[in-house]
């Protein structure tokens, strides 16, 4: 069985093996194999191409950009997504503007171990996809399955644009798959993770699994909920979302992000502006609470959306 984390490791291994332009740079990713072991054994297997960086997020991203200009394909790891704020300037103002300004693309992948886990607390739990999606010039992906973790990372390395790869730590060990696919939906296409007819849940990342569990819970009430896994939040596959809402007439957006702005706001804004007539009821959304992510497991469990809060929201949506 291959875990989500192992899929990320294997994608990096394959990228290193097949493309001499690829190298990895980040804190503790060398012989140690990374804080989460996403690069385990890769330094030994690819000598000189998996490099420990100093504790310098700004320099890590800056160096990746310079390397990309010279034709390399760096994958850099932020130890936690939360620390990417220290390298954010290079990401949003340099990597993201390079192509527009100079016509030279910037093929870097920034891996962000994202999202909440029990006991993670305010600084090891953040979901920053909306932050990076707001600035122009970045592709922002949020794989929610083992298969996507693998194929989307490989695809991310191959494309010429900077990719923010939001891998969800909660899924690292929880999710397992038998085998890894050769083919996959391209980045930019959402996936119907579960077909339904009564309402559409649009979600991404770890919340896919909470949403699927909520949908399952509602089967007992006689409802069939369609669940759309966005896969990438920028570009955002409005067509697939609209097609689903056209079928169901009802929309619930679920994200582990904070409530102000973010993916749920953007999805609702797109559906409301472009598919207003498709909606039979007011759209709804479920997000985390508007506070830092609390460290105590009991508080954390109440801070983020869960299958039961999603199911409760879906019930309200179905009864409007």
């Amino acid at each position, binding site marked *: 069985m291959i875990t989500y984390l192992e899929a990320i490791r294997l994608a990096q291994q394959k990228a290193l093996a097949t493309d001499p332009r690829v190298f990895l740079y980040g804190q503790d990713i060398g012989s140690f194999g990374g804080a989460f072991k996403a690069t385990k054994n890769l330094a030994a297997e690819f000598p000189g191409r998996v490099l420990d960086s100093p504790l310098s997020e700004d320099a890590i991203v800056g160096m990746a950009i310079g390397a990309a200009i010279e034709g390399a394909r760096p994958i850099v790891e932020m130890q936690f997504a939360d620390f990417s704020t220290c390298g954010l300037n290079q990401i949003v103002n340099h990597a993201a503007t390079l192509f527009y300004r100079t016509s030279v693309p910037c093929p870097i992948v920034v891996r962000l171990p994202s999202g909440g886990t029990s006991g993670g607390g305010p600084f090891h739990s953040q979901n920053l996809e909306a932050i990076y999606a707001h600035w122009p010039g970045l592709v922002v992906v949020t794989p929610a399955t083992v298969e996507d973790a693998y194929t989307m990372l490989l695809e991310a390395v191959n494309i010429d644009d900077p990719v923010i790869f939001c891998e969800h730590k909660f899924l690292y060990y929880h999710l397992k798959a038998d085998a890894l696919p050769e083919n996959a939906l391209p980045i930019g296409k959402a996936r119907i993770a579960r077909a339904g007819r009564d309402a559409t849940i649009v979600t991404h990342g770890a919340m896919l699994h909470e949403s699927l569990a909520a949908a399952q819970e509602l089967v007992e009430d006689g409802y069939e909920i369609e669940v759309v896994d966005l896969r990438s939040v920028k570009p955002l596959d409005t067509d697939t979302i609209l097609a689903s809402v056209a079928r169901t007439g009802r929309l619930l957006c679920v994200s582990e992000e904070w409530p102000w702005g973010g993916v749920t706001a953007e999805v609702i804004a797109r559906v409301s502006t472009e598919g207003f007539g498709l909606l039979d009821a007011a759209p709804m*959304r479920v997000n985390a609470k508007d506070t830092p992510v*609390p*460290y105590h497991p009991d508080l954390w469990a109440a801070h983020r959306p869960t299958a039961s809060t999603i199911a409760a929201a879906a019930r309200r949506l179905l009864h409007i």
Partner: protein
Amino acid sequence: MSKKIAPVTQSDFIKAYRVMLTSRVLEEKLAGLYRAGMIKGGVFLGRGQEALSVSVGIQLRRGDIFAPLIRDQGGRLAFGDTVLDTLRTYLGSQLGSMRGRDGNIHRGRPRDGYYAMISHLGAMIPTVAGALLARRLKGEQGAVGATCIGDGGTSTGAFHEGLNAAAVDRLPLVVVVANNRYAYSTPNSRQYACTDLLDKAAGYGVGAHKADGTSLLDCLQTLRHAIHAAREGGGPQLVVADLLRLVGHGEHDDFAYLDPELKKSAFGSDCVLLAEKHIIDEGWHTADEVASWRRETEAEVNATADRVRREPSPDPSEDDWAALSRPEYREQYSAS
């Protein structure tokens, strides 16, 4: 420097040693609780760094500011933190100073000058500098602010910007670098290329102090000098101590990357054992007396842990979930 600096006395040494011992015993307890699955969140210990850390906390005065970092259990206790609050935070008691919202190494009581670190390394340096600037603007004299950082943390932009800004305003800031040879797994050779981290001091125009991190006496003396220099108007002081952490980065880490040569080197000694030996060798106390201190401390720590385990967890339904202090600014987000 106007005033003479008092030498470290026997009683200073013993007082500091007893805080080191409490820290050591408490951390051993935390490690045990971690293995037993009772801790909320991670456990990052300062084993091997107690001499340095305690020296920082103990040489500061009431009214000073201390912003400890990851490996400062010793310094925290020396500056006034308690075994009780430490255990409350790690065990997730509702009564802990952070009320379950944050915890463990991130705890603090800013109103008492005991700052609560954020994880982002380096961030506390400008913060303490700004606190000292505010004190100066209020007309307060004589307070010092100290903060600790690792060899890895010296590579952050925050370290650089903060120390430089403090130097420009000649603020009474003491930055203590525990060079324990590793940042998580990253050895010094991948962290910096200068000969010694103390070589950075001249580049900021700040005072420079070297300490043997395994020697409590040397740490106490060095910190006394550094803090005195800051207090007397000498501007920021950089202290670099050589030592080794004697545990993994966190309790999840087996420390397999430790170079055995380093372990055998002078850095590799256990500062608690060396301090104990010093007390016995100097004839200040017998080995039995010292052993009895440990037993006393263990009893206190165990009793406190038992008590804290019976305390309630924070109740999510009672939390006001407020990131802003002003109630009017708290929005009711419909379904979140």
